[in-house]
C-alpha cells in the first residue's frame, strides 16, 4: 500500500477547476517531485492534499485511508506536514519557538525533536533565540522545514523549498531533503528547479493544465527527450 496516493483528483477555487484529474503515489522511502509549467496546478495539488482547497472529485489516501477535505489540523494529527512556499515561518517568534509550534499537538516531543532538528540543521542551533523574521532566506527555509518535522510526520509536503535561494543554498536544502527522507519521511515537493529536483527524485510527476503529462522515475524523466524539450528547457 502506498504511503500517499491521489486518484483522479479534481478541484479548484470558487467553482473554477484547476486540477483536472491528477494521479500520484509515493512510498515511505521515496521523494516525489512535482514539476511543470506555471499555472499547471503544482502548488494547487499540494494544497488539495493538505486540505486547503476542496477536492470535488477523486480521492486522496494516506496509507489507504481517505483524507481528502479533512481540515489541516486533522491531517497534522494523521502524520502529514506542510511547508508553504511563502510566509512559512512566524517572523516575530524565535527560531526555537517556531520549532516548538511545529510540535504543538505533541508537546511531549519537543525536547527530543528539537535536538534532532538542530542536528539536521546546525545553523538553527546558533540562531535559536533570534526572531525567525531576521534570518536569511535559506535559514528561514530550514526553520520552515524544521517546524514541519517537529510533529514527526510520515509524509512532508514542500512547496518550492528552494524558490529564491542561491544555488549554494538550493543544494544544501536538497541535501537535507534527502537526509530527512533517508530517516523515513516520505517527501512530496513542488519544484521550479526541475532538473536538480528530478535528480534527487524517486518519482517525478510532470503536470500540465491540471493533469499528469508524464509520470515516471526521476531519472527516466530526466532522460526522456520529450520531457527535456517541453519542460526542462532543452
Amino acid at each position, binding site marked *: 500500500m502506498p504511503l500517499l496516493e491521489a486518484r483522479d483528483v479534481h478541484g479548484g477555487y470558487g467553482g473554477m477547476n484547476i486540477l483536472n484529474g491528477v494521479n500520484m503515489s509515493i512510498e515511505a522511502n521515496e521523494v516525489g517531485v512535482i514539476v511543470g509549467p506555471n499555472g499547471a496546478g503544482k502548488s494547487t495539488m499540494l494544497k488539495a492534499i493538505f486540505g486547503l482547497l476542496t477536492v470535488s472529485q477523486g480521492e486522496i489516501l494516506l496509507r489507504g485511508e481517505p483524507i481528502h477535505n479533512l481540515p*489541516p*489540523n486533522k491531517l497534522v494529527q494523521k502524520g502529514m506536514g506542510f511547508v508553504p512556499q511563502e510566509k512559512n515561518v*512566524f517572523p516575530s*517568534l524565535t527560531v526555537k519557538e517556531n520549532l516548538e*509550534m511545529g510540535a*504543538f499537538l505533541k508537546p511531549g516531543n519537543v525536547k527530543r525533536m528539537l535536538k534532532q532538528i538542530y542536528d539536521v540543521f546546525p545553523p538553527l542551533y546558533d540562531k535559536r533565540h533570534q526572531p525567525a523574521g531576521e534570518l536569511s532566506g535559506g535559514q528561514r527555509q530550514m526553520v520552515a522545514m524544521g517546524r514541519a518535522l517537529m*510533529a514527526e510526520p510520515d509524509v512532508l509536503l514542500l512547496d518550492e523549498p528552494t524558490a529564491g535561494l542561491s544555488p549554494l543554498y538550493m543544494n544544501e536544502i536538497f541535501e537535507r531533503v534527502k537526509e530527512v527522507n533517508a530517516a523515513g519521511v516520505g517527501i512530496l515537493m513542488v519544484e521550479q528547479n526541475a532538473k536538480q529536483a528530478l535528480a534527487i527524485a524517486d518519482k517525478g510527476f510532470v503536470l500540465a493544465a491540471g493533469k499528469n503529462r508524464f509520470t515516471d522515475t526521476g531519472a527516466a524523466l530526466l532522460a526522456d527527450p520529450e520531457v527535456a524539450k517541453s519542460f526542462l528547457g532543452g
Partner: protein
Amino acid sequence: MNELVFFINNVIVAGSVSGSIYAIGAIGVTLIFSIMRFAHFAHADMMTFGTFMVLLLTLAFPGVGAVVGLPTPIVMLPLAIVLTALLAVGIDKTFYKPLRAHGVKPIVMVIASLGVTLMLQGLIRLFSGTGAQNLYLAGERKEIYRLEMPFELASRPVIVTEPQIILFVLTIVCVVGLHLFLNRTRLGKAMRAMSDNPDLARASGINTNHIVAVTWVIAGGLAAIAGTLLALDVTFKPDLSFFLLLPIFAAAIVGGVGHPYGAIAGGFVVGFAETLAVFNWAVLLRPFRDSLPEWLAQAGNLAFVGTEYKIVVPFFILVAILVWRPTGIFKGKVI
C-alpha cells in the same frame, strides 16, 4: 516643596492611575486586534459590564470584605472576571463568529462591535439606572493614605487611596502575568504564532478557534479588572468606560497595534499626557515668583488645556501618531 507635592499628587499619582487603567484596557484591544484583526469598539462597555457585575455581587454579599480584610468589591472581582470572560466568549459566539465564518471585511466587524457596545450599554442602563453608584457601600470606608514627605518645607502629604494602591499592584500583576503567559506557555506562544501568521498556525495543528476563545477570556478578564478599579477610584456609572474608549484606542495605537508591551507603554504615555496637559504649571513657578517677569508671575492658570477639555488630549495624540508614525512606538500594524 508643597508645589512639588502638588505636582506628585496631580501628575504622578493621577497619571499612573489613568495610565494603568488605559494600559489594562489597551492590552485587551491590542490582543483582540492581533488575533482577529479588527478594532473592538465594545471593549469599553465590557469594562462597564465587569464593574456592574462587581456592583451586583457586592450588593448581594455586602459583608464579605470585612471578613477577608479587603474592600468587598475586590473580593468579588475574581467572580466578575469569570462572568465578563464568559460574556466576551458569548458575544463572540453570537455576533462575531458568524461574521468571521462569512469572511467579512474588518470594517463590518468594527460596525458590529459598535452595535454590541450600544446594546451592552442599554442593557446595563436598564438594570443599573442612569445614576452614579458607589462601589463602597455604606459601612465600608475608602482608606486614604497620607504620606508625609521627609522635607521640612513640605507641609502637605502625598495622597494615595486604597483602590489606587490595589490598582498599581494589580497592574503589575497583570503585566508580569501576561508577559509570562505569552513567552513561557505553550498557549501563549501559539497566540503569538497566530497573530504572526494564522494560516501557518493552522498548518501547525493549532486550533485557531481555541486561541480566539482564549483571547476573549483574557480580554474580558482584563476589562473587568480595569473597569472595576476605575469605578473604585471614582464611582460606577453606566457610561463609566464608554468615555475611555478613545484614550484606550489612542494607547493601543500609540504603542503599536498588536503589541501587548506597546499597549502598556501607550497607556502610560496617554495617561501622563492627559495629566500633564491639564496640570496648572503656574503652581510650580510660584517659588520663583520674585525672579520671574511680571506677566509670568501673575499668571493664575498655566495649564495647556482646561480640565474639561481633557478628552481632547488623547484625541490629539491619536491624530498626531496616525499622521507621523502610524505604526506606533513599537512598530505595530496599521489599523
